């Protein structure tokens, strides 16, 4: 069953690539805007051989990883704090509901004003977008603590900190993991966007340069790289999730008793 699915997936991908090769060659679309797959692959080969490409990739990943880390840590700390301190959540709820829907890209002018084309501009946008994803999931997760587990902990004299650590945190972890996975994807989108629009160094800026210099196959090759990056990040996040939640119903599967 699994092998069959993999074969179907591979066949689908192969079909897509063949279409991407054949349609431009038949002249159904203009080759200068939509080069055939083989041309893009060739351009990708050239990119990979260029040290400047690897520097750009490193810049993008640095912005992504730093921004994501800051957002995750801040989201978790703020989320736990809001849940533990009474009234704080009610006091902040409406503010959160107001700030959360603001699209991070709307802050691009602010980022440019503050930091120009530095890495800090990218970080501002990445952190703003990823932070809400994590915070919201933490708030949901903390509400999902089983009252029986909570009462058990209280009946054995566990203090606030011990309950946060041993009961609230593990209960919220499945939500936190979802938040981190969403945040990782959003962080990549924002990192590329910031580079593309602001011109901060990275893959996005390189795409912009390729576009303005009419290097269309190179532009596509870089787009493919960002797609692969997103794929790898998602696979990585899921692997971490599976390991951290080995005990959870959604991961452990059927258990024979």
């Amino acid at each position, binding site marked *: 069953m699994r092998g069959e699915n993999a074969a179907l997936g591979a066949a689908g991908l192969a079909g897509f690539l063949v279409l991407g090769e054949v349609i431009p060659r038949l002249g159904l679309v203009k080759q200068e805007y939509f080069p055939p797959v083989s041309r893009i692959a060739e351009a990708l080969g050239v990119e990979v051989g260029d040290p400047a490409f690897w520097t750009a990739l490193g810049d993008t990943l640095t912005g992504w990883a730093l921004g994501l880390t800051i957002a995750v840590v801040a989201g978790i700390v703020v989320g736990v704090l809001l849940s533990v301190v009474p009234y704080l959540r009610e006091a902040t709820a409406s503010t959160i509901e107001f700030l959360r829907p603001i699209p991070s890209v709307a802050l691009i002018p602010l980022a440019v004003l503050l930091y120009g084309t530095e890495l800090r501009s990218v970080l501002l946008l990445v952190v703003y977008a990823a932070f809400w994803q994590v915070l919201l999931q933490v708030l949901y997760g903390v509400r999902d603590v*089983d009252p*029986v*587990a909570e*009462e*058990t902990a*209280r*009946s*054995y*004299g*566990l*203090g606030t900190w*011990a309950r946060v650590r*041993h*009961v609230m945190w*593990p209960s919220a*972890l499945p939500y936190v993991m979802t938040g981190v996975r969403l945040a990782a994807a959003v962080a990549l989108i924002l990192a590329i966007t910031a580079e593309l629009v602001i011109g901060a160094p990275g893959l996005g800026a390189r795409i912009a340069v390729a576009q303005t210099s009419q290097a269309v196959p190179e532009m596509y090759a870089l787009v493919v790289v960002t797609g692969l990056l997103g794929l790898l990040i998602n696979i990585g996040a899921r692997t971490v999730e599976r390991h951290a939640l080995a*005990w*959870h*119903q959604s991961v*452990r599967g059927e*258990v024979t*008793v």
Partner: protein
Amino acid sequence: MLDVRGLRKVYEGSGRRTEAVRDLTFTVEAGELVCLVGPSGCGKTTLLKCMSGLLAPTSGEVTLGGRKVDGPPPGMAFVFQEYGRSLFPWMRVGANVELPLKQKKGLGAARRKELVADALESVGLADAAGAYPWQLSGGMQQRVAIARALAYEPDVLLMDEPFAAVDAQTRADLEDLVRRLWQERSMTVLFVTHDIDEAVYLGERVIVLSKSPTVVQEQLKVDLPRERDQLTTRVTPRFAELRTHVYEQIQAAKRGAVAAPGAGEEAEVAKAVGTAGGVPVDVRKDMPPLR
């Protein structure tokens, strides 16, 4: 030892006022095994939560060894009915049992290991320490919860319908386990159940509660021998008399009938058998089927 005086609990919320417990007064002596039995929905869980300091009573008070209970007291352990939710699925069995011990001051790691191993041994799960709770059967999970309570070395063990969710055979084993642990470890045990047979089989004393709003319907000394056996004890005439009597009291409680004369003290059982709330009833017709 454990005193409940004038306990009353009223829940208030969304315009509704529910008096769960009206006026409860009783005492559990040190080293006693007392069963609380009452009709379903009679506020047994509310009572137990007030006694364990998880819930604040509206009025009245609970004292443990002369000290007022206003939060979970250190010498008390609680075994919940929902073992699957009370054990933490993210911790292995050993860690589950050990966690409460880490909150106790002055317990070294070596001593904790010892207590955990001893408690698991006592419930017959010496080799399950490395498993996750969800890899065990329901009965085994409840044994783990009991082991966690034992390792805590409580003076008082509160059990809230602990065997309501396990099958009948496992249940008989667990009942014997509780009797044995109580005798071995000289704890005070308060066992809440809705099962009359279980209450009579386990308890040295049975407290029958009325329907909600709850008062004590009757207290009853169980004069069965100290050594009990699932087969022989349950077929003795005395066992049948006691369970019939408790059954009638429960039926009376459900109808809201006034407790039999002498309620609140130890009723004279022999006289009370065959009557419920002073009204003679046909015992044979009212007898519940034997399990």
